[in-house]
């Protein structure tokens, strides 16, 4: 790996400009005073070393005017820096009114972000450039800190209380996202990237359900569609119900249809049932499910999506469903097989969902396994 010597983090938000100005001014000031002291010390140490012939007559021990000057200069400089620092701080802590909301949940050891239309992502945050984005954050367990160096901003994420931060990204690209408050074993791996996108690309990304989250497996993407945009879980829960049969353990099972024909449920059958459900109605159910063929034609549903859905349905076997069907609140009408529907409730409620998704997405390993977090590979450019 070739070494590179970056001397400054990328500047990718509206904060970065004024921030860097202040930072470099302070640097210059630091350098100036350090040089002053270094030069003073060295010059004096050499000039007045023992035995030198330098003039030592009339030494000064007290000089009130000089002392007061030395007192005054740092005080005034300090107050000036305080003013600019404070202005910047107030600016950073005051989200503008027109901000777009994104919700963030911190959990040992991952970030879960949720966009206002319900799209969720883990350890990645997609944001549009040129728009004010406000993050409303909460932690599920210990204190974390949401830190984006390229945006020059961070905020702690505290359990029991919302904290907010905001930014306005200015440059497209992928930037580091760190947890910057020590939170336990895998603290250093609790992070990922912030993807700043052109607003149109962001809108498109949102509309796609954020499916380009690279770290998800097919089944997980299928799960998103199933519980998210397509909301299959409204009818197909963990158990059969009047609105629809359960799909748990469907794959490979023999199904009997209303016309008494039976078939083993395979990929082809599932695809058929998504696109043209009326063809093979399960015995005991009427034709209630919409046909998704038109969506496929419109391009709202892709073949890829169908494959992902199938992958997810395959993964739904009885054990996972039984083990995870604990819907928070306890009174949800739709029994949700793996994770509750996104966007239905506030971020706090969805924390549980995030947890489940996390447990699927990131097998927790305590080792130094580079492959543990998928984002690692992504970022190892």
């Amino acid at each position, binding site marked *: 790996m070739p070494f590179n010597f*970056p001397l400054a983090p990328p500047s990718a938000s509206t904060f970065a400009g004024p921030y860097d100005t202040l930072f470099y001014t302070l640097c210059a000031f630091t350098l100036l005073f350090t040089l002053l002291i270094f030069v003073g010390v060295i010059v004096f140490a050499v000039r007045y070393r023992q035995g030198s012939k330098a003039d030592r007559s009339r030494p000064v021990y007290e000089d009130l005017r000089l002392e007061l000057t030395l007192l005054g200069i740092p*005080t005034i400089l300090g107050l000036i820096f305080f003013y600019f*620092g404070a202005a*910047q701080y107030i600016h950073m802590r005051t989200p503008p009114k027109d901000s777009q909301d994104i919700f963030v949940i911190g959990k040992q050891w991952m970030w879960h972000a949720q966009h206002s239309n319900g799209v969720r992502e883990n350890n990645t945050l997609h944001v549009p450039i040129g728009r004010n984005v406000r993050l409303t954050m909460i932690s599920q367990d210990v204190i974390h800190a949401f830190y984006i160096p390229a945006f020059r901003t961070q905020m702690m994420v505290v359990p029991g209380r919302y904290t907010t931060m905001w930014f306005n990204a200015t440059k497209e690209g992928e930037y580091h996202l760190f947890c910057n408050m020590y939170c336990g074993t895998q603290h*250093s791996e609790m992070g990922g990237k912030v993807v700043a996108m052109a607003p149109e690309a962001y809108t498109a990304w949102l509309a796609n359900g954020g499916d380009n989250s690279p770290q998800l497996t097919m089944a997980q993407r299928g799960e998103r569609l199933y519980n998210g945009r397509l909301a299959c879980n409204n009818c197909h829960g963990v158990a059969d119900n009047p609105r629809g049969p359960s799909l748990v353990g469907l794959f490979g099972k023999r199904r009997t249809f209303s016309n008494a024909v039976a078939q083993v449920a395979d990929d082809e059958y599932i695809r058929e049932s998504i696109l043209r459900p009326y063809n093979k109605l399960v015995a005991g159910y009427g034709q209630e499910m919409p046909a998704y063929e038109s969506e496929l034609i419109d391009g709202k549903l892709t073949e890829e999506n169908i494959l992902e859905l199938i992958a997810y349905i395959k993964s739904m076997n009885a054990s996972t469903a039984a083990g995870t069907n604990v819907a928070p609140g306890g009174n949800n009408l739709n029994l949700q097989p793996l994770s509750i529907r996104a966007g239905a409730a506030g971020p706090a409620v969805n924390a549980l969902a995030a947890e489940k998704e996390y447990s699927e997405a990131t097998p927790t390993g305590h080792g130094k396994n580079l492959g543990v977090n998928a984002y690692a590979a992504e970022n190892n450019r």
Partner: protein
Amino acid sequence: MSAIGIPAPVEEHPHDTRTNYLNVAHTLKSWLTTGDHKRIAILYLISISTFFFLGASFAGMIRLELMSPAGVILESETYNKVFTAHGVVMVFLFLVPGIPAIMGNFILPIMIGARDLAFPRLNLLSWYLYMIGGGFIVASFVGGGIDTGWTFYTPYSSMYSNGQVGLALIGIFIAGFSSITTGINFIVTVHKMRAPGMTWFRLPLFVWSMYATSVVIVLGTPVVAITLLLVLLERVFHLPFFSPELGGDPVLFQHMFWFYSHPAVYIMVLPAFGIISELISNFSRKRIFGYHFVAFSSLAIAGLGFLVWGHHMFVSSQSMYEGLVFSLLSFLVAVPSAIKIFNWTLTLYKGNIRLQSPMLYALGFLGLFTIGGLTGLFLASAGTDVHLTATYFVVAHFHYVMVGGSLLAFLGGLHYWWPKMTGRMFADGPAKVSALLVFIGFNVTFFPQFIVGWLGMPRRYHYYYFAPEYQVYNVMSTLGATVLALGLIMPLFYLTHSLFSGARAAANPWGAHGLEWETTSPPPTTNFYETPIVQDEVYDFDPVAEYEQQRATSEIFDPGHPHRRIDKEGESKPGIAGADHSSSRAADGQKEDR
């Protein structure tokens, strides 16, 4: 030491005819039950040095591990335990007690002309408390380690961490009481035990800074003690003090913790200021510039230091307005530190500077502390702090203050008072090399961390494979740490060596000014054979006169090599009868067994 008519009676006797505090008794029991502040200081020196090298070895493991973005030898869990151990040992067992308990204990009573501290048995108790506390902390490492970071933030420490947090908390609690007892002892001693004539403004600046430190210790330590006790109660008995689940506020812990732990930074660095004032003044042979300003800046730092803790919490979700208040106050607390730096530098002007090893440490301190202090402004300014909080920038900043400040001053003080403590001279050559290595190694270690922190590398990160651009700085840092380690190990050898074969130290081997140099090296158990009466001002040097005298003497004694004789003897009190006495005494002493 100008114009003294009466040579001290001490000088008349060859010192080895009388017992000193070291050879008054030799049994282990006599050490472990001693009430003598000097012996307790030696006990502290041994135990604190041990803990220092323990903490340093943890630091070595951290640096080794960070060489590679994906770690070298440790698991994440172990790494977390290692950096916690480094922090806990260095902060609570080295930096906080270090200078007060060793130098303060040894020198402070002698400096003010007292026979002992006001409460010798309390002093011994404080050492035992320290050892018990240290024992608990080490037990917590041995028994499974703690992985909370030295800050013990709740709710991680109270509810989530699985390590031996309880043991460590008990250890810190007890070690805190060790600090408190030392602080009480110093305060009372400074107030009530000064020798006749030793007015407040004749106190050496080391005493002023120790006094300020003690005030901070006494007022701050109980708060952290109770706070950590609360975490312990929450952890063990589930009393809900900071638990967010029950409506408690984990940020309250941070407030209470930093209420002590920010002033604790001044506990660590104020004594260093004191030592540096001594070194700069004595090795420049010049009264310190602006004595009153330097003395009162210590008290100002002690007072203001209590009002700035919130700058650790700018992004912790504390109120923005409180953040602004703390930011302002933090800028103000920088002013007294700046005053000190300026005054020290101005002291050098027209001095007569001896570049012996303690002075090299002191000059190194001036440079490093300047950088450490100025980078503190980045963190005091609320706006810039948002990006830099908890990154390596902070790590570099406080290492510049703590290592570049406290540790260098500690080493400088140790070298300076070593002849007084042990009665032996160490080799100045290796000591200078060591000072240089520490300075260079330190800068190479920690300067890259400023940059990598500015790039955004968070502290306490084990891996950074996702950000390989950080590696180059980490490798530099590790290389520097190797040099630094070398520089720190060297004193271990030449100082130990001096114990066995160093030359006998004269009463005043550096030609310094102060009551501690009036008594023998090492001093008797009661410090002085007669109660001293102070008649002259503090740091009463006259560089012009001294220079003239020195030139005159050197020309008389050795016209071909001016100054050489004086250098060789390490004795620079020309024109005073004591100089001859001490040099002949040194020669005599070498034949004697100590």
